[in-house]
């Protein structure tokens, strides 16, 4: 994150696929030209040594060839290059090159040619030292306070400091407690070497101490030396910084003191000569290199710190003075003086980008990408806007999205095979006496245009089960046909409330304006045969629940109606037919010989539904085939409400039971957590206290929790079963009311909507309160006796009722009113005399968690609400902080 980027003065790329590290860059007037112009010396791990003398780039031209003074291949990897007074008898600057097993000192000289590009440079080997151990890095300086010459100290990879007095080897010492090499620096003020050891300490060793310690050429000797009383290598001071360091620099503060700068992996330290912290700074990034240099203001030191986020920060002590962006991650940074330019920042990246730059207020040009937008043509835009506005307006008026004729984008058809599967596909069924059959359903999809995200899901009433209920299709070309087949079987031991299945296909149809596509849905229903869940059985004469359906046509032979259930053993009994549902219940169907009546009887009220429905459907089909148009069924007796109420009570009881269990569970959970907390404090105590049977309590509570959870699960199973029965009974009730009052299809639909809400039956919002609210609404609107009744207000929230008496009363009332000729109708103008606001009537409310069902008693609409409470906007910048890497 920076405002500016470093201004490029001169840059080049070195070699191809060469590697560079910290020590590979050095700036000095290496050829002793005496004009104070620095040359850039770069060595690489591939063994190349290059010397540059950059000139400012002329407009239009890249770096010139004569900027490269020298390039030689030294065969061995160059670990570090340094320039100093390394040759005895002269104070000229020489170049020291550290290879892993060799130290070479060269002199660099140039011969002037006639023209500038005629200059020649060469290096001459002055002397070289072969090293016994693999070198790692080196430092140089006037060790021991010698004047006019520089000594070299090389740190080997296994922790030996080797000191060379120019052409001769002086001594070698092992550092104690060494594991991996750290950076090494020499402080002339205190005449000591400073390094960061593997123990994460800054350690300072006096040169004197090193020189006088017993010579140790082998590590074993050093071990013995530790034991013996000889002169041990004693550390001058240490400072624990708690992290490994990347680099160390010594910088003279003033005449009498110098500072030791340590760049750690996460912090940046400035130490006094005696190893105390002058200041430190926590770095919010991963640093890669640093360089302290003198500051303009007194008593402070500036530091350049490069990091792995391509940035170069300049600090004055701890205050950030400048941040600039670099095109690469620098591994080494130096400041130099070239020709007429002072203070040029030279950076080297590990892949060989060498750049000389200076700070400037060039913004780091971040060009925000252009937003994808269309060419602005205001006329066209106006037209389009108007068109869209019109669509929105239409939608608002109609309340629904206008259905354009695009239904044939995708054709869905379902076919149920006429025979049961020869090998049943049923798996995991509940153990029962009968083998469970399955039937194959085939769904065929045919598209007209290209469609995206086509997904088919199939739903059947539980406990019916599908072998697969989700399919995905790919309609990439128009006019494709694909089909899938799956099997349906009865999974549990009770009867489903419906034999109808539903296949829903959702897809999105891309248009030119909306390439993502408009989501659309197509559904297709299919009807499963009765024999899937039912077997022919022995008819029984007696039963507790009986229903009689009247027709206006002469009776039909039951064998003709139910050929698939004909019992071959007793074909003489044409008027009686027995069914055995897979759950075990028996239903008997009787046809009267003389009158036009059919009787259905069973031990369970809810079991009547499927057979009754099947009978009526088959009768209708039969007469349609014969060409009779005016066939109708009717029901005369009173509606069997009592049996129905029993089922409601059973369902409600289970719900109450579930609620109780849940309360118990939450109590136990609270208790469990309380015990846990107690135990936690016990265990944490320094002085262990006896547990006082808390563990037994914990165990007991845990068992209770598990038992309760099991009970809840079992209860839920039973609830599901009971709900399925309740649904069957409700279907039957609606059917009976329809036959009894000869309701039209519209009215039946209203009744179904009221009695069979689409949502799931859950603990929070169950069937009872939903149906009660719906019936109460019907009673207050279209079935109301007087306008006074309409004024009643309902509670706005649906809660689980205390008992079912209110619901029962309402259902009875509903039947009464229907019997007295009430008509079901929900359009407001027909039934309700008053204009009223039906929630969600005019425009669709966006889906809300809490649908308000209250009816408002006030007819006056208030028009103006002055106080516009607008929420203030919420700006927030979520640049996540902390984790940079």
């Amino acid at each position, binding site marked *: 994150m920076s405002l500016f980027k470093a201004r490029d003065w001169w840059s080049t790329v070195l070699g191809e696929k060469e590697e560079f590290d910290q020590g590979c860059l050095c700036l000095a007037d290496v050829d002793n030209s005496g004009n104070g112009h620095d040359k850039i010396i770069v060595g690489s791990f591939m063994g190349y040594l290059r010397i540059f003398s950059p000139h400012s780039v002329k407009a239009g031209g890249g770096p010139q060839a004569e900027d490269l003074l020298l390039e030689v291949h030294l065969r061995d990897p160059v670990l570090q290059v340094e320039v100093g007074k390394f040759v005895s008898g002269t104070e000229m600057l020489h170049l020291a090159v550290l290879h892993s097993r060799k130290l070479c000192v060269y002199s660099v000289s140039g011969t002037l040619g006639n023209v500038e590009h005629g200059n020649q440079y060469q290096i001459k080997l002055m002397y070289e030292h072969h090293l016994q151990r693999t070198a790692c890095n080196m430092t140089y300086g006037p060790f021991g306070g010698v004047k006019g010459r520089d000594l070299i100290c090389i740190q080997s990879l296994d922790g030996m400091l080797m000191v060379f007095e120019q052409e001769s080897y002086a001594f070698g010492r092992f550092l104690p407690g060494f594991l991996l090499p750290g950076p090494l620096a020499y402080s002339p003020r205190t005449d000591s070497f400073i390094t960061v050891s593997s123990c994460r300490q800054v350690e300072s060793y006096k040169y004197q101490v090193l020189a006088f310690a017993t010579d140790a050429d082998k590590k074993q000797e050093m071990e013995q030396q530790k034991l013996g009383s000889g002169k041990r290598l004693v550390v001058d001071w240490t400072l624990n910084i708690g992290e490994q360091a990347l680099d160390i620099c010594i910088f003279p503060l003033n005449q009498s003191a110098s500072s030791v700068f340590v760049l750690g992996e996460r912090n940046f330290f400035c130490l006094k000569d005696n190893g105390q912290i002058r200041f430190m*700074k926590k770095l919010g990034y991963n640093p890669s290199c640093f360089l302290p240099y003198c500051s303009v203001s007194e008593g402070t030191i500036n530091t350049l710190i490069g990091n792995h986020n391509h940035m170069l920060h300049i600090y004055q002590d701890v205050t950030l003075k400048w941040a600039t962006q670099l095109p690469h991650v620098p591994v080494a940074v130096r400041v130099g003086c070239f020709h007429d330019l002072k203070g040029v920042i030279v950076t080297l990246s590990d892949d060989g980008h060498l750049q000389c730059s200076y700070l400037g207020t060039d913004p780091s040009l971040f060009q925000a990408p252009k937003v994808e937008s269309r060419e602005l043509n205001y006329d066209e835009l106006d037209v389009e806007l108007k068109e869209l506005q019109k669509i929105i307006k239409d939608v608002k008026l109609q309340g629904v999205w206008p259905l354009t004729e695009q239904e044939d984008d995708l054709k869905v058809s379902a076919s149920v095979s006429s025979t049961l599967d020869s090998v049943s596909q049923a798996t995991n069924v509940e153990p029962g006496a009968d083998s469970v059959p399955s039937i194959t359903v085939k769904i065929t999809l045919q598209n007209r245009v290209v469609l995206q995200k086509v997904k088919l899901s199939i739903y059947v009433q539980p406990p019916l089960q599908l072998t697969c209920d989700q399919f995905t299709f790919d309609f990439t070309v128009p006019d494709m046909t694909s089909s899938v087949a799956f099997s349906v079987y009865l999974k549990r031991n009770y009867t489903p409330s419906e034999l109808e299945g539903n296949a829903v296909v959702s897809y999105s149809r891309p248009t030119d304006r909306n390439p993502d596509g408009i989501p659309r849905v197509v559904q297709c229903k299919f009807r499963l045969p009765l024999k899937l869940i039912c077997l022919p059985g022995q008819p029984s004469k007696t039963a507790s629940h009986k229903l009689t359906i009247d027709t206006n046509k002469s009776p039909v032979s039951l064998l003709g109606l139910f050929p698939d259930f004909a019992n071959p053993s007793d074909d003489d009994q044409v008027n009686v037919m027995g069914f055995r549902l897979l759950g075990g219940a028996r239903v008997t169907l009787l046809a009267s010989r003389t009158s036009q009546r059919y009787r259905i009887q069973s031990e369970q009220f809810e079991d009547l539904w499927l057979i009754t429905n099947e009978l009526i459907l088959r009768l209708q089909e039969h007469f349609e085939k014969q060409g009779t148009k005016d066939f109708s069924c009717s029901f005369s007796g009173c509606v069997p409400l009592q049996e129905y109420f029993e089922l409601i009570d059973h369902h409600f009881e289970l719900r109450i039971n579930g609620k109780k269990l849940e309360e118990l569970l939450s109590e136990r959970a609270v208790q469990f957590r309380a015990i846990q907390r107690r135990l936690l404090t016990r265990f944490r105590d320094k002085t262990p206290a006896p547990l006082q049977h808390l563990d037994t309590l914990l165990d007991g509570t845990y068992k209770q929790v598990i038992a309760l959870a099991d009970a809840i699960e079992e209860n839920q199973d039973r609830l599901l079963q009971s709900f399925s029965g309740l649904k069957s009974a409700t279907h039957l009730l609606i059917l009976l009311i329809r036959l009894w009052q000869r309701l039209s299809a519209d009215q039946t639909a209203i009744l179904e909507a009221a009695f069979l809400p689409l949502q799931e039956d859950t603990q929070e919002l169950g069937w009872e309160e939903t149906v009660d609210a719906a019936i109460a609404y019907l009673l207050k609107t279209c079935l109301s006796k007087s306008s006074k009744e309409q004024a009643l207000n309902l509670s706005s929230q649906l809660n689980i009722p205390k008992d079912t008496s209110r619901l029962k009363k309402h259902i009875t009332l509903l039947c009464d009113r229907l019997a007295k000729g009430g008509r079901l109708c929900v359009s407001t103008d027909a039934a309700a005399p008053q204009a009223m606001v039906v929630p969600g009537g005019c425009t669709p409310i966006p889906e809300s968690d809490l649908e308000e069902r209250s009816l408002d008693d006030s007819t006056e609409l208030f028009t103006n609400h002055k106080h516009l409470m607008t*929420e203030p906007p919420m700006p927030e910048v979520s640049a996540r902080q902390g984790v940079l890497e």
Partner: protein
Amino acid sequence: MGSEMEPLLRAWSYFRRRKFQLCADLCTQMLEKSPYDQEPAPDLPVSQAAWILKARALTEMVYIDEIDVDQEGIAEMILDENAIAQVPRPGTSLKLPGTNQTGGPTQAVRPITQAGRPITGFLRPSTQSGRPGTMEQAIRTPRTAYTARPITSSSGRFVRLGTASMLTSPDGPFINLSRLNLTKYSQKPKLAKALFEYILHHENDVKMALDLASLSTEYSQYKDWWWKVQIGKCYYRLGMYREAEKQFKSALKQQEMVDTFLYLAKVYIILDQPVTALNLFKQGLDKFPGEVTLLCGIARIYEEMNNSSSAAEYYKEVLKQDNTHVEAIACIGSNHFYSDQPEVALRFYRRLLQMGVYNCQLFNNLGLCCFYAQQYDMTLTSFERALSLAENEEEAADVWYNLGHIAVGIGDTNLAHQCFRLALVHNNHHAEAYNNLAVLEMRKGHVEQARALLQTASSLAPHMYEPHFNFATVSDKIGDLQRSYVAAQKSEVAFPEHVDTQHLIKQLKQHFAML
């Protein structure tokens, strides 16, 4: 070509250049040649070095600075035994944000989060956390803006990092922890520190790390502050805050370091002692003047304590030390925005843009600032960019919501209506959009719809006072005094200083008295 480089040297160089994968691979090759399998032989220093270098490289790959990463999970909140007083004195706790003592913008101007704090300008971990009272509440109330699930455990993140790193070594873990002889390693300080970091950060075995640390600190005769800090870190992760505090304090006595101050302050914050944390930070600032992390810590605490003016002061102090600090710029910017200085806020946000922050939120804020600073030409283009940069549905919803505000501002209620609807399309739980949609419906006279929308809004965000108040007003207008009173009371709980609510309640009480 001449001689090859020593592999250890090359690996060491890779490590310094943060090419950890290359470094680890190279070390693996070296270790294959001369295995150093748990048993260091004294005559094999090279393999020992390679072993520790690999451990360090693997650690650095997954290392994160633990000072910032913290999010309290439910378990920590519910089983919190460190709470001292249930009802702390105002201004001494972070749990109950005190009322605005310093006259910053009120809730009516600056929205608040669920925990009752004004929203801040910078999303950082634990910005949005609040302490729920019970487990049930914790499970039901969403605590981050993005998921409905509360964070289950604070260690979730650490565990994930730990397991992710396992994938890098197909032959199983690099160091088999169960076979380590901790006592032996604790006596080798040069190995122990790197090994400890490996165990803690890479393997995430806090208990084992703690064992190693305690053995090591014993070996160093309790003279190494670093080990104390590490023990403190382990205690902190294990939730033993008081013990952690002791260790950090003892470490500070030995050697004052910035990190130790930060760790100790973190302990105080989780112990809910913001004042102690503040004092500690200030003490740290005496030692390390101008340390950005310490200043930033102070500013964050002030912000959490609802003292936004002090927070802004410290953020300004941060900028004096480090003027590229994104968090400080963003927080000062939002502070200016909510104190009615959109022009000034605009400058801060523009600075962020220049610095290369390029995201949806920034353009959203720029758009808002432009609008309120009457620079209408830039407003819509900013929002256009914000929309194109929106990374998820929630962001897009917020942008549409703010566009709705612009539409309300220019009086185009149709556009506003559509914008709020679009906000809801993107995020169905956008309570503010529900509320504003309700206000628009109310203006059209659709009372029932407005009420339904307001109820939705208030059930989605009970901490906002606006839906409650609006509901109270609507109910009052149509004569439903009882509900109006109930809603007004809820509004008063959410925002006690709201004058209109107080007025309404007074009026309603008069009504009731008359009856």
